[in-house]
């Protein structure tokens, strides 16, 4: 039985992971913004076999609220074996280009709020000297592209942060996982026209995440073929890259 903290628990990928853990009889502490969605998710996980489910309402960009959330999680579970940070939003790039406030809000939502949570929770896991910290970044963080570089920049910050945090935590027995999903059919991507062959489901991605945590992987692309796609995209020389529009 593991004790698991999930931030962004009503997101499709987080929910799919939570169902796998509930099925295994793990204990869950769910954090999300919307009380109703949180309650419906919690009911579902209890029925699917979770040992216990506690929910906590919090906006992840409200940094001041993080400490209280951790305190509640520790009261409920005493220790944390797995942290999954899954909240995020896919902004409209055009809006971000026109409006600095929108751009910074998206950076806060996808980047700084995650870094704030990782900082706080890393210290808790460091004290425990055990556990896994997993954060969902994105393949979009691998290279800035004109179509979504604000989102990409925020996710790149999370990935780089994880890369540095990992060796620090390794020495105290804590595992850090950077999860880079490709295109997944979720509410976040609803309404976008996506190349069908490249789109995965939240359930498939969740399986890979749960396995990645079990196997203490450093970085995973979900599904794995995105590793190859991003390798190709990263190796496009600047002279060509700056002429592309994708």
């Amino acid at each position, binding site marked *: 039985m593991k004790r698991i903290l999930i931030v962004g628990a009503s997101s499709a990928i987080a929910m799919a992971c939570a169902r796998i853990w509930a099925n295994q009889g793990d204990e869950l502490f769910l954090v999300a913004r919307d009380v*109703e969605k949180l309650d*419906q998710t919690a009911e*579902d996980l209890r*029925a699917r076999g979770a040992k216990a489910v506690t929910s906590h309402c919090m906006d992840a960009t409200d940094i001041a609220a993080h400490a209280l959330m951790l305190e509640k999680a520790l009261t409920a579970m005493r220790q944390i074996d797995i942290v999954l940070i899954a909240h995020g939003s896919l902004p409209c790039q055009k809006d971000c280009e026109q409006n600095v406030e929108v751009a910074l809000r998206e950076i806060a939502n996808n980047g700084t709020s995650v870094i704030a949570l990782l900082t706080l929770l890393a210290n808790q896991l460091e004290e425990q000297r055990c556990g896994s910290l997993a954060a969902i970044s994105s393949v979009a963080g691998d290279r800035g592209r004109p179509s979504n570089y604000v989102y990409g920049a925020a996710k790149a910050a999370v990935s780089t942060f994880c890369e540095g945090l990992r060796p620090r935590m390794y020495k105290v027995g804590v595992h850090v996982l950077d999860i880079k999903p490709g295109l997944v*059919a979720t*509410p976040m991507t*609803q309404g976008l026209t996506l190349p*069908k062959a490249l789109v995965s489901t939240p359930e498939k991605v969740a399986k890979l995440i749960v396995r990645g945590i079990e196997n203490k992987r450093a970085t995973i692309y979900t599904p794995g073929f995105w590793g190859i796609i991003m390798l190709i995209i990263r190796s496009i020389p600047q002279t060509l890259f700056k002429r592309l529009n994708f």
Partner: protein
Amino acid sequence: MDPLLSWGRYPRVPQIAHACRWRGQALDSLQDIVHFHGSTLPFGNGRSYGDSCLASSNQVLDLRLLDRIIHVDWQHGRVVAEAGTTLGEILSISIPNGWFLSVTPGTQFATIGGAIANDVHGKNHHLRGTFGNHLLRFGLQRHDQPMLCCSRTENADYFAATIGGLGLTGVVTWAEIQLMPIQASGIDSTATRFGNLAEFFTLSAEHDHKHEYSVAWVDCLATARQAGRGVFIVGDHTKYGPLEVDRRTKLRVPATPPFSLVNNWSLRAFNVAYWHKHSDRPRNQIGSYDSFFYPLDRFVNWNRVYGRKGFQQYQCVIPSGVAEVAIQELLARIAASGQGSFLAVLKRCGNSASPGLLSFPLPGVSLALDFPQKHALHPLFERLDDIVREAGGRLYPAKDAHMSGSDFRRAYPAWERIEALRDPILMSRFWKRVTT
């Protein structure tokens, strides 16, 4: 998202899916689609065969993501779940706790919403009736009022109209169902060959009431002395053994072939092989519930083997008194046409009345066959319809893509009550076809 088709992929009218992800959003989603497209229809997991799950506007409200369990009571075997939850998902949590679906159709990929809308039945219809007989209550979202809770006592008219109501009375967002207790998850089954229809009727009369489940396969291509031969199968939940959720690896049909792989050659070979696979003496075995109830679920997308044109299922039920004669005639007609089905299924339906107004089963015998879609089906189906009409039987809307409006209205006189309670913004291709 990919456009959706019905299970038979005929008629081929791709549906645009509008996903509803939270039950509180059902009303907003409904109104959104109606605002842009005029009308819609709730869509579950697309297991209806014909056009009853296709919206006349081709814009469906996709409820598959409403798949949360809301409450479980293992003391009394009751589950409250969202409408998009599949029957297989219910089994995966109920079996370890010693409960099974009171009624299950031949696929576990149907959703609870779909099971209600078609008032599905299973191999134990002779004992337990339809899915609707075990439905305690559900939430119904209509476009112009807050969510209604419907049961036998509360909003009883909507309760009756929605069971078998083909998704037209509103969107079922959640439901509470009564499960039945089991001691173990295995099925103890006995298969007996029969040489002709008369033998089937004798076997069925003798054994049905002694067993929870009963069904028969008929070789629909056999003619002359072999006509009406088949295999009669009864089963019961085992008393001893583990309570295990079956997790067989699922196989996929990787692509849709340009033409049907089901043709006269493959059908004949299959039917002969199936007959000879069973020995001439009754054979008893204990197997998993999965292979007993859901043999075809092993092949995800098995409907693809019928090729791009798709297929139609012909399922009718014939009242007891004339069942033997009429089914004999139906089988003769089909065998003579040379078109036929991998598995022609015979099943005796019991007397228990469903609370639903438009429920398909009636006391008698039901026959179901799958046919690859081709032009020659039309005259054959007309002939079969004549026989069914004369026998006072009826066809199953969940499987149908052809029945005439007059046949439907004659066989389901309660249709006008459904029409009166229909949410005016919900309209299927089937309903439009048979009521106008």
